[in-house]
């Protein structure tokens, strides 16, 4: 085992949180080693959206860019006709009566999961940070919206977030740096439906440039955000926070460097991390401060695999919350060609507050979901939307191509004792580190929220003129989340939380966490990356003064 230079800070994970933490630390004069288990992606060569088959491309796989996890058995399903995942053309996703534990969507690499994210840039609803006090569920955040607001501003400025003047309860001390994107034709159609049923429908705040910003080109509305953005207008962490950290001259970035263990000392301080090398050997990397930002699956895995480090409260891995999601597609009588434009360009916050949905605690939001499910291209449309085969099928495809509208909804997912991350007792990676095992079970309140989201999505599509539903997908029967939270929750009480309000371990004085594992609650459907980044910037400031 070799030993590298000692750094002021070693940041583990170069996604939304790690990149922001690295930038915040470098900006304050600290030297940072930014490690990631995955590779570096080159937007100009790895995202070839100029190719003729661009619409059938997904975000590229590179060696090491997907981590392995295992799953506990899926939940037995009841009878929820509105929540069954499937399409007319391809049938059900999970026909076996058991929730399909399919995958946890993420990217390992410099930029992390922001490389394939849609790029929504949301602030949390202030009331969603105090769920225990106001509603008796989940746990309170040990800070409030006002404490986070300056860091939201800092993150938005660096990214170049484009958004509207106002977002209701999310008060702002400064305008979004860029004006909102215009709504696509399909979003305008949905907007008329939203108005008819009393839903607000406004420009979404997006980490995609509506004007040139810091030397980056503006978006040209190709819609391919989830495939990787070759222009660099999408505000993924590699082209924003990592680039800014490197520009300080104090950040060293090391891809393909999985951390397999944290080495603790006897003085309540972490000494080093052990980094796996391609040849299977380990390298010991020492530092003064250590920031974990591996996400809500891999951060608890690393702590648990390091002899339960920072688990004095026994909360590491508990309180797991995944994405409560539904998307519905329907055919409109007129062509929409919703694949044109920025995905998720419009949003409704009407039911986002924790008490906004009648009869159930926890909010949700609705949006134009073309980005998720319209952009499969002609082949995906032909096979999903139109059942069967033969000449009648061919004629229907010709007649209906471009007529799809999609509405998505994401809602609050509350923690429960049956949803957690632990270590797989048998499966290990090439360095002998146990894999993370994910257990997820929806409670009745989650299902009630999903029912409301489904009914409202159907109503919105119908009011927009799209009556013929041909597909629907939900997390009721299909576990395939991107947004995951809660497994190292922050709190004031060391007995009930892993880290404090600044992301610092209650015991280990130089160990910090800067990812969504610290979220005590998941919000009413907000995309988490901006909040992760704001928290990470706040953590970085605290580290500097520690």
């Amino acid at each position: 085992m070799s030993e590298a230079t000692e750094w002021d800070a070693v940041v583990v994970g170069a996604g939304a949180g790690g990149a922001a933490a690295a930038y915040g630390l470098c900006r304050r004069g600290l030297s940072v080693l930014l490690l990631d288990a995955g590779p570096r992606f080159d937007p100009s060569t790895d995202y070839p959206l100029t190719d003729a088959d661009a619409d059938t491309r997904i975000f590229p796989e590179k060696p090491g860019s997907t981590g392995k996890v295992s799953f506990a058995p899926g939940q037995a399903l009841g009878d929820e006709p509105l929540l069954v995942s499937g399409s007319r053309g391809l049938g059900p996703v999970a026909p076996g009566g058991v929730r399909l534990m399919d995958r946890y969507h993420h990217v390992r690499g410099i930029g992390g999961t922001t490389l394939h994210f849609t790029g929504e840039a949301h602030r949390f609803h202030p009331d969603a940070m105090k769920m225990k006090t106001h509603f008796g569920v989940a746990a309170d955040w040990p800070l409030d919206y006002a404490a986070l607001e300056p860091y939201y501003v800092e993150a938005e400025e660096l990214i170049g977030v484009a958004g509207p003047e106002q977002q209701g309860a999310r008060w702002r001390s400064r305008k979004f740096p860029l004006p909102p994107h215009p709504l696509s034709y399909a979003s305008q159609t949905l907007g008329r439906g939203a108005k008819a049923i009393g839903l607000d429908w406004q420009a979404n705040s997006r980490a995609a440039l509506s004007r040139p910003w810091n030397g980056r080109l503006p978006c040209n509305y190709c819609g391919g955000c989830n495939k990787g953005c070759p222009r660099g207008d999408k505000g993924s962490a590699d082209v924003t926070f990592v680039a800014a950290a490197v520009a300080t001259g104090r950040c060293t970035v090391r891809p393909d460097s999985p951390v397999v263990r944290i080495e603790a000392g006897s003085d309540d301080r972490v000494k080093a991390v052990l980094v796996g090398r391609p040849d299977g050997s380990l390298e010991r990397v020492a530092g003064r401060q250590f920031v974990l930002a591996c996400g809500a699956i891999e951060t608890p895995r690393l702590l648990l695999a390091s002899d339960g480090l920072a688990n004095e409260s026994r909360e590491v891995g508990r309180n797991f919350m995944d994405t409560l999601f539904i998307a519905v597609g329907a055919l409109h009588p007129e062509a929409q060609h919703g694949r044109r434009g920025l995905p998720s360009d419009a949003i409704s916050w009407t039911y986002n507050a924790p008490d906004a949905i009648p009869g159930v605690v926890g909010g949700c939001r609705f949006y134009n979901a073309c980005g998720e499910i319209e952009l499969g291209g002609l082949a995906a449309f032909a096979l999903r939307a139109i059942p069967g085969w033969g000449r009648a099928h061919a004629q229907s495809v010709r007649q209906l191509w471009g007529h799809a509208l999609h509405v998505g909804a994401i809602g609050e997912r509350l923690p429960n004792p049956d949803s957690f991350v632990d270590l797989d007792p048998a499966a290990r990676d090439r360095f002998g580190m146990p894999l993370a095992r994910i257990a997820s079970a929806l409670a009745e309140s989650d299902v009630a929220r999903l029912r409301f989201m489904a009914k409202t999505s159907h109503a919105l599509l119908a009011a927009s003129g799209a009556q013929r539903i041909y597909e629907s997908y939900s997390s009721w029967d299909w576990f395939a989340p991107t947004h995951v939270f809660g497994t190292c929750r922050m709190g004031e009480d060391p007995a009930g939380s892993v880290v404090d309000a600044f992301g610092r371990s209650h015991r280990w004085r130089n160990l910090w966490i800067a990812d969504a594992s610290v979220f005590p609650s998941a919000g009413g459907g907000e995309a988490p990356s901006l909040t992760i980044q704001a928290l990470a910037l706040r953590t970085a400031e605290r580290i500097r003064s520690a």
Partner: protein
Amino acid sequence: MDRRQLTALLGYLSFGGLTAFWRVVKGFAQPLETDAHVERAVGAIAEVMFPGDGLPGARELGLHRQVLAHADVQPMLASGLAFLDRYAASAGAADFAALDEARRLAALDAAFASGADGIQSFVMALRLHLGTAYYSSPAIKSAFAYTGPLQPDGFADFRDRPA
């Protein structure tokens, strides 16, 4: 094909992006030596499943040979084609390829409705792979609006009623 494989074939979506659909479709290419009967039969399936109807059909484009290379199709070929040939025999034909278009379609419908082990999966797998190859073919895509590469131009008319 086990349940998980079938599920992957049927499901394609993930929150946050397209994934399993294209991963499944693109993930299985392996060379396969086929006899003339198999190629003729799968060609006949391609001909009726995706006939073009004014555009070139899947068989005309040679896509049936491409589909035979998919590893998930290969184990199902023998039983699937045997089912279709038995149907043809019951209709007095030498084999499936000898049927006319209407009776080929009826045979495929019968296979899709069959409760026999793996037969419905066979039809769905061929539909998935043939349909994907067909509607991804440049010759077909060019007949549909807004199917060109996403970059470098994007969609400048994204706010407007489609042309």
